[in-house]
């Protein structure tokens, strides 16, 4: 089976600081990958390089059989890469429904054969809001939301682009146990629909229950990649997290 995402030896530095150092990563279609690592290990930088927010200096990223290096972030979104941000970044001046309308207008409608009429757009917004349990607040603005609702909006907006790959960057940080379960259930449901998910998370219980495979970044290097239960026992991983 060919990989959906193929990250080949990418590196990124900020001045003298090496944020990513020759990362290789493959994600199969339909897979649930957990990506963990201590703070500052390069997880978000890797996401930014995959999504086109940052440009990697060496190596290349292949998505769905095509090299996507050099494509702008919005072009990668059109190809089917979607992300949520670590700190939610809603469009403040718009209602929740309009927040979801943006990827529908600019990504889904831009794809061939997926032209929605205007009335369909509204229905699709409602459907997505319903999926994340925010249907009642469709007309409100993001400022009125709680933390967990904001994260849900962030995920709903990423889903609205009808992606093949969803990268959830710490979408559970700061949430309570029941809220974490909410988000996890949501991500699992998406995965069942055939969307490949990369979950970046610090909350180990969530990562362990969600991931089929686990990759670990430390200081910009990938030090482990495999079955979650094996990876967490890996001596390098334990040393990175707990120290010697």
């Amino acid at each position, binding site marked *: 089976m060919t990989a959906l995402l193929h990250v080949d030896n990418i590196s990124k530095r900020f001045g003298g600081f090496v944020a990513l150092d020759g990362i290789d990563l493959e994600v199969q279609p339909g897979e649930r990958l957990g990506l963990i690592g201590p703070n500052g290990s390069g997880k978000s930088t890797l996401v930014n390089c995959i*999504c*086109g*927010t940052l440009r990697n200096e060496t190596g290349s990223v292949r998505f769905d059989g095509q090299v996507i290096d050099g494509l*702008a*972030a*919005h*072009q990668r*979104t*059109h190809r089917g890469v*979607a*992300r949520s*941000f670590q700190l939610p*970044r*809603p*469009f*403040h*001046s*718009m209602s929740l429904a*309009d927040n979801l*309308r*943006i*990827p529908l*207008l*600019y*990504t889904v409608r*831009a794809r061939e054969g997926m032209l929605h009429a205007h009335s369909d757009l509204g229905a699709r917004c409602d459907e997505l809001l319903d999926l994340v349990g925010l249907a009642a607040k469709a007309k409100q603005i993001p400022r009125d939301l709680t933390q967990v609702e904001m994260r849900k909006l962030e995920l709903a*907006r*990423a889903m*609205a*682009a009808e992606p093949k790959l969803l990268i959830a960057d710490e979408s559970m940080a700061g949430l309570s146990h029941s809220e974490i379960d909410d988000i996890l259930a949501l991500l699992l449901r998406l995965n069942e629909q055939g969307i490949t998910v990369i979950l970046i998370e610090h909350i180990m219980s969530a990562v362990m229950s969600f991931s089929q495979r686990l990759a670990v970044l430390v200081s910009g290097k990938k030090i482990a990649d495999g079955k979650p239960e094996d990876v967490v026992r890996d001596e390098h991983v334990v040393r990175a997290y707990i120290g010697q």
Partner: protein
Amino acid sequence: MNTLSFSAIATAVGLAVLAFAQWLGLDYFYFAGYTILQFIVLATAWNILGGYCGYVNFGTAAFFGLGAYTTVFMYKLYPLPIPLLMLMSAVVCGIVGFGMGYLTLRLRGAFFSIATLAMAVVVQTLVINWDFVGGSRGAYILHPENLEFAGLKVNYIVYLFVLMLILAVVALASARAIERSQLGFGFATIRDDELAAEACGVPTLRLKLIATTLSGAFMGMAGAPFPYYIGYLQPQSAFALDYAVNSIAMPMIGGTTSWVGPLVGAVLLGSAQQYATVTISSAVNLLIVGLMLVAFVIIAPNGLIGLVQKRLRRGPP
């Protein structure tokens, strides 16, 4: 209401203004009205980039001046009818707007604003040193006192007034159409959060270039009839800082998120300035702008429109 019916209503309002002016029969009304209409166009044009996309442009004078000097250039070469000159100015300033956008839109916030201000200085310096269009001496533009349209004698200032009135209607209708279109939604995402916009598939650079081009073109069109209005054009008056300050202050006072804001702001501030010019002194103009801007930043940071919306949302007590 769709764009067509809005344009019809806007045209009707425009005709009503014209009818009122005719009834008044006062030449001065046309002189003052022209300036206010010109500011409606400038404020609306500024708002396409500054209000909808959130990029504060200090270079209005550059586009306005370029539009005016396109007219001067053509006047020296071969005088053409003003509507044609307006179109030419739109093309010239649209291209310059595109170029400015391409060079500066990777800058954000204050850096972008400083770059646009610098551009205004560069363009003015170029014109000062360009002898063909009069250089620092300026240029005289002569026009007949009256024009004849199908046997009807029309005073030249009335002609200019009507042209600016049409342009104002077109500018407002365009701004409103943009606001409600996919383009307008895209502009709003740029204002709110560019990174998130890209992640949603919005081609931010392309949209910003569309905004700078449109905005520049409208500013240029507002400048095109100006040499005929003023009769003697010199770089200091075409590239005056007043244009930049006014076209920022007017949408700020009216409200930047909707087409109504620049209209309200321009009418309010423009009329106040005209009134002060006649009753006190023309030097008081900028003082009024400054005072009103300070007052509005304190009382209504989202402009008059924002204030009204807030009241409406709160509902009756």
